[in-house]
C-alpha cells in the first residue's frame, strides 16, 4: 500500500472560521509553538532573565571565593561518569612509604573505592610484586577506628579550618612567649616533604622538626659514614651476588626492602638440571629469622660473637685477597681473630670474589658493620654497578640518635612550648624518661591517623589522612621518583594530610610562606614544573607511577677512608653481656605497632613461629628447660627501662640464653582491634636505643597463656610429602625425583578429556621464602574474614593459603626449615566432591574444583575427606561485626560467605572469568598465557607461583610442570591427581661445610 493513497489534495476543516483562513494563517495555526518562541521575552529592563541569573550566580561565586581557599576536592562518583563502567575496575598508581623505603603501587578501584593494592610493575623496586603488609594497608583505609573519629579542639566546630586555627594560635602564643616549637615526625623518603620542612624551618626559626622513629638502627649508616663518607645505608642487590653472608641482617624478613631482596634472592634459587646455578646464603645469627630459615648454612652464635666471627672472616679474606683496599692497619687489627665457622664462609666468599657480600644487621655495632664493609671492600663487591652500589642509598637513613638526644636536652631545659606529634606515637614507643619530659611541655598537639596513646596526653587532636587519601611523593633508594596520588577522597571528613596541615599552619604563622601553594598538591606540582612542564607529561607520570626524567643525584667515586676503617675495626668490643640476652626484632606482621589495628596483619601467622595475635618470648628448648618453663608459661622480662610479661615459646634454632621478642604489640589505645594483644616490648628499650640485643633479667610469673598458633606440629614425621635435596644430590641424581610420578591409568573408567582450558599451578618450594604475601593477597582478593584470637586458638582461621612450615635436622643436627604453601589442590579425582550430599562442590570442565556457596548446607564431610585439609568452614557469622565503612573493602566480584558454609581456594575463579570475557571481547577463543594471574601469584615476590592453562603446550605452567626436574605432587599416591605441581627444595651446600 503506497503512501500516495492518503496524500490526497483534498482539504478538510473543522469549523467555518478555519475554512475561511488564508493559507499563511492556516500554517501558523497548525504549528505547536509560536514562531518566536525561542526569542527571550522582553522586559522593561535591558538585562534579560537569563543574564540576570548568570550575573547573580557569578556574584555569589566571587563572594564565596573571597572568604575561603579554592577547593581541590576529589569527589566520589555519585553519577555515572562517561569513562567509568560499573563493574569494570580502574587502576591507578601511587607510592607507599614503609618509613624511608618507597614502594610503587598499582591500586585497583571499583566504583571509586580502592579494593586491592599490588606492586606497580613499572616501578623498579616493586616490579609488580608486594608483601603482606603492603596488601594489608588497604584495610586501614576503611578502618572505622580511623575513619569515624573527630578532632578534639578548644571550642568551635570540628572542622579542619578550626583545627588549623587552633593549632596555629597555640604556636603563635608559644613563640610570643619566647618558647620553641618542635614537630616530631616519622622517617620518610619524600623529597617534597623534606623540602617543605626545610622551607618552614628556614622561615620560622623557632620551629624545628625532629625525626623520632619507633625503631632505630644506626650501625650501618655510621660505619658507611666513617669509611665511605656516605652517611646512610646502602641497599645491596642480591641478584648480583653468588655468596651472601647475612650476619643478623634479616634481609628477607624485617628489612624495609624485603620485597626487593626476596625477588633478587629467589631469582637465583630455581636450579634446573641443565642450569644448576644457585646463590649460596650463609646466616650467622642468634635468633631464628626468616633469612636464617632460608639459608643454606645457618650458624648459630651468641650475640657477643658477631664481631669476632666477622673479624675472623675479614682476616681470612685478607689473607687470600690482600689488604690493599682497606689498608694494612685493618689487616693487623684482625690478625688475631678466630672463629670455628669463619674459614668455610671466607673460602666461599673468596671464591665468589666481587659476587660475594657480607651484610651485617643495621642494629649491630658500628664496629661490626665496619668489619662487614671492609670484607666487601676486600672482595671488591662495593662500587658502582656492584652488589653494593654506592648510588643505592636509602633516603634519610642517616643517624637519628643524636637528634633525639638533642630533643631530650631541649625538653629538659623547658624551652619547648609546643610539641606536635605528626604520626609519632612516643607514648607507646618512648621510654620513661622521654614520657616524663614530654609531659612537661605546656602544649601538646597530635596529628595522627588514629586516636593513639599519644592523643591521650594531647589537648588538641587533628585526624590525619591515610596515604591512599593524600598527595605526596617518594624516592626509592635507587633514585626512582614517584608521585603519591590519592585514590579516594578522605573518608574522614575532618581529616587533613600532615603536609597540608603544615602548609596551612605555617601560612598562618608567616604569610610569606607558600604564597603560590594553597595545598601540598600545588607544592608538589610546582616543584615538578621543570621536569613535567605540561599536563600531558604530568598525566603520564601518574599513569606510569614513576617520573621518568627526574634527576638522580650524582654520586662520587668510591673513596675509602682507610684510617677511619682501621680505627673502627680495632675498636674494643663492648664488654661481654650477661647470660640472658633479649633480642628485639620488628614484627613481620604488625611492624613497629603502626599497623596493630589491622585485623589482617594481626591474624597473619608469623612466618617462622606461626603465632598470631600477640608476641611471644622465643627461647631454645634447652634454655626453657633450665628456667623450668614450658610453652605458654608467662615470664617477666625486665631491663633498667621497665618490664613486660610474655608467654614463652619454644623455638628451634635459637642460641641458648637468647630471648627473642617482637615489637608492635601491647598497644593500649588507637582502636578496638589492637587492645589486649601482646606486650609492649618498647618498655624494655630506651628511645633512640638501637633495636637488637639488650641485657635482660627473666623471672617466672606462674601464669600460663594459650598462644594462638596456626600450626602446632613442627616435624614432618618422616612423611613423603616434600622434596628436600642438596644441589650436589640434585645434579648427580637422575631418578629420585621422577619415581613418584605415578601413571594415570589406575582407573577402570576413561579419563575426562579437557577440551578447552585446563587450569593448573606450579609452586617452587626452592624459591619460596615463606614471606606469606600470598596469604594476605588471597585474603584481600577473596574477602576472607579474620576471626580473632580466640577463634584462632579454636583452630578456625580462614586463610585459603597456609604456609606449612616444617623443621628438619641436617646430618650435623642443625635445624633446617622448609616452607610449603598449601592451598586447594583442585584434584582431578577430588575426594571432597563425591562425598558432598548436595553436590555443592563439583568439578568444572576446565579442571577447577568449584564451590557453590548457595548450595552448601555445611555437612563438613568434604573438609574431613580432604587429605590436604585446605577447606575452611564458616563456623560463625564472621562478618557480623563489620562496621561501616569496613564493608567497602570487599571485592565486589567475590561473594561474601555466610555462616554454615564451606569455602576454599577457587584459583581466583573471578579473575579466570574476567580473563575469558576479555579474550572473548577480543575475538579470541582462548586466553593468552599470563593473561590470567591469581592473586597469590601476583603478590609472590619470589616468583614461586605459576598459574595457567595446562592444555596450552606453550604456557609457562605447562613447561614448568612437564620439564622441571624437581617436580612432585603432594600425596600423589592417593591418586587424587592434584592440579598443583610442586618443585622440590634445593639447598646449595658448600661441600664438607
Amino acid at each position, binding site marked *: 500500500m503506497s503512501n500516495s493513497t492518503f496524500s490526497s489534495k483534498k482539504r478538510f476543516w473543522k469549523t467555518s472560521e478555519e475554512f475561511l483562513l488564508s493559507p499563511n494563517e492556516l500554517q501558523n495555526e497548525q504549528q505547536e509553538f509560536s514562531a518566536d518562541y525561542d526569542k527571550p521575552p522582553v522586559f522593561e529592563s535591558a538585562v534579560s532573565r537569563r543574564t540576570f541569573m548568570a550575573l547573580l550566580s557569578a556574584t555569589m561565586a566571587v563572594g564565596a571565593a573571597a572568604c575561603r581557599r579554592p577547593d581541590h576536592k576529589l569527589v566520589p562518583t555519585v553519577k555515572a561518569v562517561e569513562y567509568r563502567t560499573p563493574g569494570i575496575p580502574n587502576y591507578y598508581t601511587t607510592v607507599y612509604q614503609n618509613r624511608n623505603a618507597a614502594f610503587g603501587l598499582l591500586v585497583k578501584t571499583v566504583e571509586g573505592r580502592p579494593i586491592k593494592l599490588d606492586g606497580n610493575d613499572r616501578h623498579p623496586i616493586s616490579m609488580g610484586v608486594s608483601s603482606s603488609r603492603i596488601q594489608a594497608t588497604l584495610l586501614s583505609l576503611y578502618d572505622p577506628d580511623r575513619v569515624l573519629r573527630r578532632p578534639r579542639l578548644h571550642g568551635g566546630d570540628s572542622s579542619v579550618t578550626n583545627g588549623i586555627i587552633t593549632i596555629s594560635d597555640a604556636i603563635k602564643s608559644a613563640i610570643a612567649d619566647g618558647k620553641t616549637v618542635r614537630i616530631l615526625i616519622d622517617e620518610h623518603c619524600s623529597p617534597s616533604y623534606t623540602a617543605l620542612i626545610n622551607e618552614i624551618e628556614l622561615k620560622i626559626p623557632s620551629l624545628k622538626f625532629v625525626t623520632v622513629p619507633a625503631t632505630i638502627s644506626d650501625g650501618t649508616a655510621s660505619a658507611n659514614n666513617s669509611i665511605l663518607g656516605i652517611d646512610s645505608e646502602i641497599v645491596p642487590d642480591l641478584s648480583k651476588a653468588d655468596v651472601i653472608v647475612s650476619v643478623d641482617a634479616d634481609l628477607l624478613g624485617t628489612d624495609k626492602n624485603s620485597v626487593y631482596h626476596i625477588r633478587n634472592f629467589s631469582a637465583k634459587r630455581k636450579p634446573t638440571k641443565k642450569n644448576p646455578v644457585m646463590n649460596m646464603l650463609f646466616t650467622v645469627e642468634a635468633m631464628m629469622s626468616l633469612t636464617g630459615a632460608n639459608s643454606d648454612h645457618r650458624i648459630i652464635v651468641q650475640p657477643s660473637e658477631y664481631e669476632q666471627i666477622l673479624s675472623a672472616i675479614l682476616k681470612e679474606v685478607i689473607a687470600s685477597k690482600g689488604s690493599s683496599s682497606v689498608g694494612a692497619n685493618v689487616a693487623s687489627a684482625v690478625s688475631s681473630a678466630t672463629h670455628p665457622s669463619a674459614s668455610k664462609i671466607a673460602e666461599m666468599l673468596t671464591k665468589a670474589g666481587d659476587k660475594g657480600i657480607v651484610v651485617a644487621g643495621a642494629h649491630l655495632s658500628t664496629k661490626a658493620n665496619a668489619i662487614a664493609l671492609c670484607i666487601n671492600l676486600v672482595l671488591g663487591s662495593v662500587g658502582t654497578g656492584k652488589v653494593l652500589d654506592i648510588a643505592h642509598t636509602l633516603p634519610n637513613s642517616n643517624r637519628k640518635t643524636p637528634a633525639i638526644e638533642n630533643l631530650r636536652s631541649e625538653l629538659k631545659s623547658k624551652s619547648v612550648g609546643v610539641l606536635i606529634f605528626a604520626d609519632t606515637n612516643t607514648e607507646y614507643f618512648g621510654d620513661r624518661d622521654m614520657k616524663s619530659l614530654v609531659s612537661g611541655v605546656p602544649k601538646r598537639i597530635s596529628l595522627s591517623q588514629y586516636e593513639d596513646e599519644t592523643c591521650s596526653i594531647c589537648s588538641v587532636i587533628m585526624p590525619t589522612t591515610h596515604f591512599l587519601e593524600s598527595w605526596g611523593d617518594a624516592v626509592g633508594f635507587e633514585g626512582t621518583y614517584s608521585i603519591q596520588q590519592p585514590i579516594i577522597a578522605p573518608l574522614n571528613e575532618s581529616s587533613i594530610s600532615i603536609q597540608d596541615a603544615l602548609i596551612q599552619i605555617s601560612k598562618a604563622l608567616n604569610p610569606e610562606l607558600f604564597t603560590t601553594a594553597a595545598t601540598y598538591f600545588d607544592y608538589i606540582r610546582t616543584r615538578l614544573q621543570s621536569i613535567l612542564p605540561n599536563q600531558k607529561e604530568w598525566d603520564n607520570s601518574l599513569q606510569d607511577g614513576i617520573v621518568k626524567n627526574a634527576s638522580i643525584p650524582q654520586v662520587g667515586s668510591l673513596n675509602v677512608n682507610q684510617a677511619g676503617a682501621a680505627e673502627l675495626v680495632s675498636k674494643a668490643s663492648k664488654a661481654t653481656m650477661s647470660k640472658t640476652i633479649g633480642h628485639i626484632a620488628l614484627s613481620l606482621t604488625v611492624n613497629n605497632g603502626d599497623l596493630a589495628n589491622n585485623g589482617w596483619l594481626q591474624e597473619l601467622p608469623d612466618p617462622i613461629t606461626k603465632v598470631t595475635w600477640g608476641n611471644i618470648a622465643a627461647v631454645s628448648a634447652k634454655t626453657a628447660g633450665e628456667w623450668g618453663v614450658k610453652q605458654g608459661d608467662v615470664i617477666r622480662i625486665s631491663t633498667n627501662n621497665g618490664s613486660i610479661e610474655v608467654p614463652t615459646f619454644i623455638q628451634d634454632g635459637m642460641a641458648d640464653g637468647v630471648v627473642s621478642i617482637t615489637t608492635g604489640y601491647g598497644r593500649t589505645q588507637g582502636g578496638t582491634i589492637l587492645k589486649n594483644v601482646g606486650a609492649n616490648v618498647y618498655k624494655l628499650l630506651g628511645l633512640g636505643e638501637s633495636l637488637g640485643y639488650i641485657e635482660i633479667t627473666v623471672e617466672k610469673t606462674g601464669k600460663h597463656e594459650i598462644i594462638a598458633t596456626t600450626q602446632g*606440629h613442627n616435624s*614432618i614425621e618422616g612423611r613423603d*610429602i616434600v622434596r628436600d635435596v642438596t644441589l650436589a644430590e640434585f645434579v648427580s641424581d637422575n631418578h629420585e625425583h621422577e619415581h613418584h610420578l605415578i601413571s594415570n591409568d589406575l582407573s577402570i573408567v576413561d579419563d575426562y578429556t579437557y577440551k578447552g582450558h585446563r587450569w593448573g599451578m606450579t609452586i617452587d618450594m626452592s624459591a619460596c621464602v615463606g614471606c606469606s604475601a600470598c596469604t594476605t593477597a588471597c585474603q584481600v582478593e577473596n574477602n576472607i574474614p579474620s576471626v580473632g584470637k580466640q577463634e584462632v586458638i579454636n583452630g578456625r582461621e580462614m586463610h585459603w593459603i597456609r604456609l606449612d612450615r616444617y623443621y628438619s635436622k641436617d646430618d650435623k643436627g642443625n635445624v633446617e626449615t622448609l616452607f610449603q604453601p598449601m592451598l586447594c589442590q583442585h584434584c582431578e579425582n577430588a575426594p571432597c566432591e563425591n562425598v558432598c550430599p548436595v553436590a555443592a562442590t563439583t568439578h568444572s570442565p576446565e579442571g577447577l574444583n568449584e564451590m557453590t556457596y548457595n*548450595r552448601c*548446607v555445611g555437612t*563438613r564431610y568434604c573438609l574431613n575427606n580432604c587429605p590436604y*585439609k585446605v577447606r*575452611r568452614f564458616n563456623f560463625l557469622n564472621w562478618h557480623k561485626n563489620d562496621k561501616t565503612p569496613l564493608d567497602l573493602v570487599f571485592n565486589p566480584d567475590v561473594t561474601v560467605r555466610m555462616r554454615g558454609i564451606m569455602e576454599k581456594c577457587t584459583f581466583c575463579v573471578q579473575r579466570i572469568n574476567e580473563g575469558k570475557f576479555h579474550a572473548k571481547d577480543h575475538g579470541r577463543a582462548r586466553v593468552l598465557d599470563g593473561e590470567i594471574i591469581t592473586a597469590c601469584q601476583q603478590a609472590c615476590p619470589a616468583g614461586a607461583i605459576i598459574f595457567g592453562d595446562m592444555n596450552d603446550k606453550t604456557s609457562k605452567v605447562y613447561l614448568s610442570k612437564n620439564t622441571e626436574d624437581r617436580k612432585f605432587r*603432594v600425596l600423589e599416591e592417593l591418586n587424587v591427581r592434584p592440579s598443583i605441581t610442586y618443585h622440590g627444595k634445593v639447598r646449595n651446600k658448600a661441600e664438607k661445610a
Partner: protein
Amino acid sequence: MNVNDTMNETKSSVNGTNSLMPSAHEEVFREQLILGNPTLHEITEKIASIPTLTPNLKFLVTLFVFASMALWGLFCMGYTIATGIGVWGLNNPVGWGWDITNFVFWIGIGHAGTLISAILFLFRQKWRTAINRSAEAMTLFAVLCALIFPLLHTGRPWLAFYWLTPYPNQMQMWVNFRSPLVWDVFAVSTYGTVSLLFWYIGLVPDLATMRNYVKSKFASKIYTAFSLGWTGSVRHWHTYEVAYMILAGISTPLVLSVHTVVSMDFATSVLPGWHTTIFPPYFVAGAIFSGFAMVMTLLVIAREVVDLKSFITLKHLDNMNKIILATGMMVGYAYAMEFFMAWYSGNPYESSVFINRATGDYAWAYWTMVSCNVISPQIYWFKKMRRSIPVMFVMSIFVNIGMWFERFTIISTSLHHDYLPASWGYYSPTWVEISIFTGTIGIFFTLFLIFAKFVPMIAIAEIKSVLPGSQPKHHDNH
C-alpha cells in the same frame, strides 16, 4: 475378662490344650519363659494395668529429671541453630566430633530392637516376646535421637532438611547419589519408617486390649482410634500375623544395611583410620552389642520398678548377655584386625593413625573403649555373672560407654592427625555439645517413660503364646 482375652484364650484353645501345665513334649528341658504359671487373664491384668496406675512420686521425679535434660538439650540445639556450629568445639581438621559420634551411637542402640523383633522372630526365638515391645520402642526413640544429629550438625539445617532428599525442583538439582551421606538419609529414613510400622502393627491387638481395659472414656477413645477397629476375629489375627511376618522380613536386611551404610560414611573416605573395608561387619556387630546393652539397662530398671520379674526372667537376661559376649568379641576382633592391617598394609599414614590412637592425645579414649568393650564382657563366660543383676547392670552401662568411645575414637583420632602434619589439631567439646548429648539422653528416657505410662510394655498377645501348652502340637488336627 475382656473380649481380647477371650479371643486369645480361644486362640490357644484352638491351637492346643486348655491345660496350663507344662507339656511333656516341650519346655521340660528348657527353663520356663514365664514364671509363676499365671492364667491368661492374670497376664492381661498384670500388664494392662500398668498404664492405668496413677504415676507415683518416683516416676514423676524420674520423668522430671529426664524431661529437664531434654528441654535443656533442646534449648542448646536452638542456640546452635541460631548462632552457628561455632558454639561447638569443632575446628579445621576435626569437622565432626560429638555430633556424628552421637548419631552413630544412637543408630547403633536402635539395632537391638530390630534384631529382637525381626531376626529372632524369624528364627522362632520365643524368649524374645517378653522384651520385643520395649526393644522396639527403644529402637524408635533411639532413631529419633539419632536423626537429630545429621540435621543439627549441618551449617544450614534450614536447607539441609529438604536439600538432602531427592525431589523434583525448579533448580533441577538432585542430591549427589555418590555421597554416603545421601545413602544415610535413605537408610536411616527407611529404617525409622519400618521400625515405626513394625512396632505399631505389633501394638494393635494390645491397644485393643487397652481400649477395653481402661475406664476413662477419653483414654478409651484414643485407644479406640489407634487400635484401628481390632475385634480379635480370626480373620484379623490371620491378616495381622501375615503383616507381622512380612514386616519382619523387610526389617531383617535393615539390621545389616543401616549400620553398613552408616559405616560407609567412613569406609568410603580417603582418611587413614576411616578407609577400612572391615567397617560394615564391624559396625553391625558393634551396633548389636551396644543395642543389647541399652535394652539390658532399660529392662533391668523396668523389671525392678514395675515388677515384671515373672515375664522378664533371668533366662532372658542370660540369653542377652550371651549375645553381648559374642558381639563384644566380634568388635574386639575388629579392633585387633585394624591394627594388623595397619601394620600389614605398610601404609605409613595408616600405621601412624593407629599408633596415635593407642598412644596419642586421645589414648585415654581408646583405652576406655578397649576396657569397656573387649576386656570387661569377658566376665560373661561365667554363668553366675550372666545371671547377676548388679553385674549385668554395671556391664550394660560399661558397654554403652565403651561403644560411645568407639565412635568418638574412630571419628576424632582419625581427623585430628591425618596426612599433612602442619594441619593437625585437637578437638574437645564445649558445654553446648555436651548438653545436646545429655539432651538426647533426656529425650530418649522421657519418651521411654511416656511409652511405659501409656502403652503395654510387654506384648500381651504374644507373650500368651509362649505360655506352656499354648503352642501347636504335632498330634493336633489342622
